[in-house]
Protein backbone atom coordinates (compact mmCIF):
# COMPACT_ATOMS: atom_id res chain seq x y z
CA UNK A 1 0.00 0.00 0.00
CA UNK A 2 1.43 3.40 -0.90
CA UNK A 3 1.80 6.33 1.48
CA UNK A 4 -0.91 8.38 -0.19
CA UNK A 5 -3.41 5.57 0.10
CA UNK A 6 -2.65 5.42 3.78
CA UNK A 7 -3.41 9.10 4.27
CA UNK A 8 -6.56 8.78 2.22
CA UNK A 9 -7.78 5.91 4.36
CA UNK A 10 -7.30 7.79 7.62
CA UNK A 11 -9.83 10.44 6.60
CA UNK A 12 -12.91 8.47 7.45
CA UNK A 13 -15.29 11.38 7.13
CA UNK A 14 -14.88 13.34 3.87
CA UNK A 15 -14.89 17.07 4.47
CA UNK A 16 -17.34 17.65 1.63
CA UNK A 17 -20.02 15.72 3.53
CA UNK A 18 -19.34 16.89 7.06
CA UNK A 19 -17.75 20.33 6.88
CA UNK A 20 -19.07 23.67 5.68
CA UNK A 21 -17.19 26.96 6.10
CA UNK A 22 -14.74 25.12 8.33
CA UNK A 23 -17.50 24.12 10.74
CA UNK A 24 -19.69 21.09 11.41
CA UNK A 25 -22.28 21.01 8.64
CA UNK A 26 -24.67 18.74 10.54
CA UNK A 27 -26.22 18.41 13.98
CA UNK A 28 -24.12 16.21 16.29
CA UNK A 29 -25.90 13.59 18.39
CA UNK A 30 -25.03 10.65 20.61
CA UNK A 31 -24.67 7.41 18.63
CA UNK A 32 -26.58 5.43 21.21
CA UNK A 33 -29.42 7.56 22.53
CA UNK A 34 -29.50 10.46 20.04
CA UNK A 35 -29.12 13.09 22.75
CA UNK A 36 -28.16 16.33 20.98
CA UNK A 37 -24.53 17.24 21.61
CA UNK A 38 -23.86 20.19 19.26
CA UNK A 39 -25.94 22.39 17.04
CA UNK A 40 -24.93 22.56 13.40
CA UNK A 41 -22.20 25.11 12.64
CA UNK A 42 -21.20 25.53 16.26
CA UNK A 43 -17.74 23.96 16.16
CA UNK A 44 -14.59 24.24 14.07
CA UNK A 45 -13.40 21.22 12.10
CA UNK A 46 -9.75 20.32 12.71
CA UNK A 47 -7.42 17.45 11.99
CA UNK A 48 -4.90 16.31 14.60
CA UNK A 49 -3.75 12.90 15.66
CA UNK A 50 -4.82 12.04 19.21
CA UNK A 51 -5.19 8.86 21.21
CA UNK A 52 -8.66 8.44 22.63
CA UNK A 53 -9.55 5.59 25.04
CA UNK A 54 -12.00 3.04 23.65
CA UNK A 55 -15.55 3.24 24.99
CA UNK A 56 -15.44 -0.38 26.16
CA UNK A 57 -12.36 -1.57 28.02
CA UNK A 58 -11.42 -5.24 28.24
CA UNK A 59 -11.66 -6.32 31.89
CA UNK A 60 -8.79 -8.78 31.45
CA UNK A 61 -6.41 -5.96 30.65
CA UNK A 62 -6.81 -4.09 33.88
CA UNK A 63 -4.43 -1.22 34.54
CA UNK A 64 -3.81 -0.52 30.89
CA UNK A 65 -6.05 1.82 28.93
CA UNK A 66 -6.84 0.60 25.42
CA UNK A 67 -7.10 3.46 22.98
CA UNK A 68 -7.16 4.22 19.29
CA UNK A 69 -5.74 7.01 17.16
CA UNK A 70 -8.25 9.55 15.93
CA UNK A 71 -7.57 12.23 13.32
CA UNK A 72 -10.74 14.24 12.87
CA UNK A 73 -12.26 16.44 15.55
CA UNK A 74 -14.64 19.31 16.10
CA UNK A 75 -13.03 22.04 18.17
CA UNK A 76 -15.30 23.77 20.72
CA UNK A 77 -13.77 26.81 22.45
CA UNK A 78 -16.49 27.49 25.01
CA UNK A 79 -17.97 24.54 26.92
CA UNK A 80 -21.36 26.24 27.05
CA UNK A 81 -21.58 25.88 23.29
CA UNK A 82 -22.53 22.24 23.91
CA UNK A 83 -26.23 21.45 23.94
CA UNK A 84 -25.79 18.41 26.18
CA UNK A 85 -22.52 16.89 27.32
CA UNK A 86 -20.85 15.27 30.33
CA UNK A 87 -17.33 15.95 31.65
CA UNK A 88 -15.46 13.22 33.56
CA UNK A 89 -13.13 13.81 36.47
CA UNK A 90 -9.68 14.99 35.45
CA UNK A 91 -7.07 12.49 34.25
CA UNK A 92 -3.62 13.82 33.35
CA UNK A 93 -4.83 17.34 32.60
CA UNK A 94 -7.78 16.15 30.53
CA UNK A 95 -11.43 15.60 31.12
CA UNK A 96 -13.19 13.19 28.80
CA UNK A 97 -16.49 14.06 27.17
CA UNK A 98 -19.50 11.75 27.38
CA UNK A 99 -23.16 11.76 26.46
CA UNK A 100 -25.13 13.73 29.06
CA UNK A 101 -28.07 11.33 28.82
CA UNK A 102 -26.62 7.81 28.58
CA UNK A 103 -22.97 8.40 29.59
CA UNK A 104 -21.61 6.82 26.42
CA UNK A 105 -18.06 7.96 25.79
CA UNK A 106 -15.47 9.21 25.49
CA UNK A 107 -16.81 11.15 22.53
CA UNK A 108 -13.89 13.52 22.89
CA UNK A 109 -11.79 15.34 25.47
CA UNK A 110 -11.40 18.69 27.22
CA UNK A 111 -8.00 20.31 27.73
CA UNK A 112 -7.65 21.78 31.24
CA UNK A 113 -5.01 24.33 30.14
CA UNK A 114 -6.76 25.83 27.14
CA UNK A 115 -10.30 25.00 28.35
CA UNK A 116 -11.10 23.92 24.83
CA UNK A 117 -13.02 20.76 23.94
CA UNK A 118 -12.52 18.34 21.05
CA UNK A 119 -15.22 15.98 19.77
CA UNK A 120 -14.18 12.99 17.63
CA UNK A 121 -16.20 12.71 14.42
CA UNK A 122 -16.02 8.92 14.58
CA UNK A 123 -17.59 8.78 18.06
CA UNK A 124 -20.78 10.71 17.30
CA UNK A 125 -23.80 10.61 15.01
CA UNK A 126 -24.31 13.26 12.29
CA UNK A 127 -27.86 14.20 11.44
Amino acid at each position, binding site marked *: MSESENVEKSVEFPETDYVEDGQNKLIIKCKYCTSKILDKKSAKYITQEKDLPL*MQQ*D*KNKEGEVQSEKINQFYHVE*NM*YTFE*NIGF*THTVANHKYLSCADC*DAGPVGYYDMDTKHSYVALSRVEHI
Partner: protein
Amino acid sequence: MAKKTYDLLFKLLLIGDSGVGKTCILFRFSDNHFTTTFISTIGIDFKIKTVELRGKKIKLQIWDTAGQERFHTITTSYYRGAMGIMLVYDITNEKTFDDIVKWLRNIDEHANEDVEKMILGNKCDMEEKRVVSKERGEALAKSNINIERAFSELAEAILDKTAGREADADAARIAVERRPSRAPPARACCS
Protein backbone atom coordinates in the same frame (compact mmCIF):
# COMPACT_ATOMS: atom_id res chain seq x y z
CA MET B 1 -15.65 36.74 20.15
CA ALA B 2 -18.08 33.94 19.40
CA LYS B 3 -21.73 34.89 19.37
CA LYS B 4 -23.70 34.11 22.49
CA THR B 5 -25.74 31.00 21.92
CA TYR B 6 -27.86 31.08 25.08
CA ASP B 7 -29.61 33.48 27.43
CA LEU B 8 -28.90 32.21 30.94
CA LEU B 9 -26.62 29.84 32.79
CA PHE B 10 -27.71 28.10 35.99
CA LYS B 11 -25.43 26.07 38.23
CA LEU B 12 -27.25 23.16 39.88
CA LEU B 13 -26.17 20.54 42.41
CA LEU B 14 -27.37 16.99 42.93
CA ILE B 15 -27.27 15.98 46.59
CA GLY B 16 -28.29 12.91 48.59
CA ASP B 17 -26.89 9.84 50.32
CA SER B 18 -24.52 7.71 48.30
CA GLY B 19 -26.36 4.90 46.60
CA VAL B 20 -29.58 6.82 46.01
CA GLY B 21 -28.80 6.59 42.34
CA LYS B 22 -28.01 10.19 41.63
CA THR B 23 -26.12 8.87 38.65
CA CYS B 24 -28.46 6.03 37.74
CA ILE B 25 -31.23 8.60 37.47
CA LEU B 26 -30.11 8.65 33.90
CA PHE B 27 -30.00 5.55 31.80
CA ARG B 28 -26.45 4.32 31.80
CA PHE B 29 -24.35 3.07 29.00
CA SER B 30 -23.74 -0.17 30.82
CA ASP B 31 -20.94 -2.48 31.80
CA ASN B 32 -21.07 -6.20 31.05
CA HIS B 33 -19.18 -9.34 32.03
CA PHE B 34 -16.23 -8.84 29.76
CA THR B 35 -15.88 -5.15 29.32
CA THR B 36 -16.24 -2.08 31.47
CA THR B 37 -16.98 1.37 30.15
CA PHE B 38 -14.13 3.81 30.32
CA ILE B 39 -16.46 6.56 31.52
CA SER B 40 -17.88 4.61 34.48
CA THR B 41 -14.34 3.88 35.66
CA ILE B 42 -13.39 7.55 35.80
CA GLY B 43 -16.75 8.99 36.79
CA ILE B 44 -18.62 12.11 35.72
CA ASP B 45 -17.67 15.45 37.26
CA PHE B 46 -20.45 17.61 35.82
CA LYS B 47 -22.86 17.86 32.91
CA ILE B 48 -24.11 20.64 30.71
CA LYS B 49 -27.71 20.45 29.58
CA THR B 50 -29.78 22.86 27.55
CA VAL B 51 -33.44 23.58 28.20
CA GLU B 52 -35.83 26.12 26.73
CA LEU B 53 -38.13 27.91 29.12
CA ARG B 54 -40.37 30.85 28.29
CA GLY B 55 -38.53 31.38 25.04
CA LYS B 56 -35.17 31.54 26.76
CA LYS B 57 -32.38 29.13 26.03
CA ILE B 58 -30.95 28.11 29.39
CA LYS B 59 -27.75 26.18 30.02
CA LEU B 60 -27.77 24.04 33.13
CA GLN B 61 -24.43 23.06 34.60
CA ILE B 62 -25.18 20.10 36.86
CA TRP B 63 -22.70 18.88 39.48
CA ASP B 64 -22.84 15.57 41.28
CA THR B 65 -21.33 15.26 44.76
CA ALA B 66 -18.61 12.95 43.47
CA GLY B 67 -18.48 10.75 46.55
CA GLN B 68 -18.15 13.59 49.04
CA GLU B 69 -21.50 12.57 50.48
CA ARG B 70 -19.80 9.60 52.15
CA PHE B 71 -18.51 11.97 54.80
CA HIS B 72 -22.05 13.22 55.20
CA THR B 73 -20.96 16.78 55.06
CA ILE B 74 -20.49 18.90 52.05
CA THR B 75 -18.76 22.14 52.63
CA THR B 76 -19.08 25.68 51.44
CA SER B 77 -16.77 25.32 48.47
CA TYR B 78 -19.05 22.78 46.88
CA TYR B 79 -22.12 24.95 47.32
CA ARG B 80 -20.40 28.10 46.05
CA GLY B 81 -22.26 29.58 43.13
CA ALA B 82 -25.05 27.02 43.27
CA MET B 83 -28.39 28.51 42.28
CA GLY B 84 -30.41 25.32 42.61
CA ILE B 85 -30.10 22.07 44.56
CA MET B 86 -31.84 18.81 43.73
CA LEU B 87 -32.10 16.58 46.82
CA VAL B 88 -32.44 12.96 45.83
CA TYR B 89 -33.55 9.98 47.92
CA ASP B 90 -34.12 6.36 47.00
CA ILE B 91 -37.75 5.23 47.28
CA THR B 92 -36.54 1.72 48.14
CA ASN B 93 -34.45 2.91 51.09
CA GLU B 94 -36.14 4.54 54.08
CA LYS B 95 -32.93 5.94 55.56
CA THR B 96 -32.13 7.99 52.47
CA PHE B 97 -35.53 9.65 52.87
CA ASP B 98 -34.97 10.38 56.58
CA ASP B 99 -31.55 11.80 55.74
CA ILE B 100 -33.11 14.47 53.53
CA VAL B 101 -33.62 16.48 56.71
CA LYS B 102 -29.89 16.30 57.44
CA TRP B 103 -29.11 17.43 53.94
CA LEU B 104 -31.50 20.36 54.27
CA ARG B 105 -29.70 21.38 57.46
CA ASN B 106 -26.35 21.09 55.69
CA ILE B 107 -27.65 23.30 52.91
CA ASP B 108 -28.91 25.89 55.39
CA GLU B 109 -25.47 26.00 56.96
CA HIS B 110 -23.36 26.19 53.85
CA ALA B 111 -25.32 27.26 50.80
CA ASN B 112 -26.50 30.71 49.85
CA GLU B 113 -29.74 31.42 51.62
CA ASP B 114 -31.78 32.04 48.50
CA VAL B 115 -30.74 28.81 46.78
CA GLU B 116 -33.70 27.06 45.15
CA LYS B 117 -34.35 23.54 46.49
CA MET B 118 -36.22 20.55 45.11
CA ILE B 119 -36.62 17.05 46.51
CA LEU B 120 -36.91 14.07 44.22
CA GLY B 121 -37.72 10.43 45.01
CA ASN B 122 -35.72 8.34 42.61
CA LYS B 123 -37.23 5.17 41.22
CA CYS B 124 -34.55 3.64 39.08
CA ASP B 125 -37.28 1.30 37.75
CA MET B 126 -37.76 -0.36 41.12
CA GLU B 127 -41.37 0.61 41.80
CA GLU B 128 -42.14 -2.87 43.20
CA LYS B 129 -39.51 -2.44 45.92
CA ARG B 130 -40.82 0.92 47.10
CA VAL B 131 -40.71 1.40 50.88
CA VAL B 132 -41.21 5.15 51.15
CA SER B 133 -44.92 5.38 50.41
CA LYS B 134 -46.10 7.70 47.69
CA GLU B 135 -48.29 9.53 50.17
CA ARG B 136 -45.38 10.14 52.51
CA GLY B 137 -42.98 10.98 49.76
CA GLU B 138 -45.35 13.33 48.02
CA ALA B 139 -45.86 15.42 51.11
CA LEU B 140 -42.25 16.36 50.82
CA ALA B 141 -41.05 15.64 47.37
CA LYS B 142 -41.80 15.78 43.72
CA SER B 143 -42.62 12.35 42.47
CA ASN B 144 -43.93 10.84 39.29
CA ILE B 145 -41.76 13.13 37.34
CA ASN B 146 -38.60 12.17 35.63
CA ILE B 147 -35.31 13.85 36.20
CA GLU B 148 -35.49 15.89 32.99
CA ARG B 149 -38.77 17.36 34.08
CA ALA B 150 -37.42 17.95 37.58
CA PHE B 151 -34.42 19.87 36.26
CA SER B 152 -36.74 21.97 34.11
CA GLU B 153 -38.93 22.78 37.09
CA LEU B 154 -35.94 23.68 39.21
CA ALA B 155 -34.65 25.90 36.41
CA GLU B 156 -38.06 27.54 36.11
CA ALA B 157 -38.06 28.36 39.82
CA ILE B 158 -34.65 29.98 39.46
CA LEU B 159 -35.87 31.82 36.39
CA ASP B 160 -38.67 33.33 38.50
CA LYS B 161 -36.05 34.75 40.83
CA THR B 162 -33.67 35.97 38.20
CA ALA B 163 -36.26 37.36 35.82
CA GLY B 164 -34.98 40.33 33.95
CA ARG B 165 -31.31 39.53 34.32
CA GLU B 166 -29.74 38.46 31.07
CA ALA B 167 -26.49 36.62 30.62
CA ASP B 168 -23.76 38.89 29.43
CA ALA B 169 -20.75 38.07 27.31
CA ASP B 170 -18.78 36.76 30.26
CA ALA B 171 -20.99 33.78 30.91
CA ALA B 172 -18.87 32.24 33.64
CA ARG B 173 -19.62 35.21 35.85
CA ILE B 174 -23.32 34.48 35.85
CA ALA B 175 -22.78 31.17 37.56
CA VAL B 176 -21.48 32.80 40.70
CA GLU B 177 -23.66 35.85 40.67
CA ARG B 178 -27.04 36.08 42.22
CA ARG B 179 -29.56 38.45 43.56
CA PRO B 180 -28.90 39.20 47.24
CA SER B 181 -31.33 38.31 50.01
CA ARG B 182 -34.99 37.41 49.71
CA ALA B 183 -36.79 34.81 51.72
CA PRO B 184 -36.19 31.37 50.28
CA PRO B 185 -39.48 29.66 49.53
CA ALA B 186 -38.74 25.96 49.88
CA ARG B 187 -40.71 25.53 46.72
CA ALA B 188 -40.30 21.81 46.36
CA CYS B 189 -41.88 21.09 49.69
CA CYS B 190 -45.59 20.71 49.96
CA SER B 191 -46.33 22.50 46.72
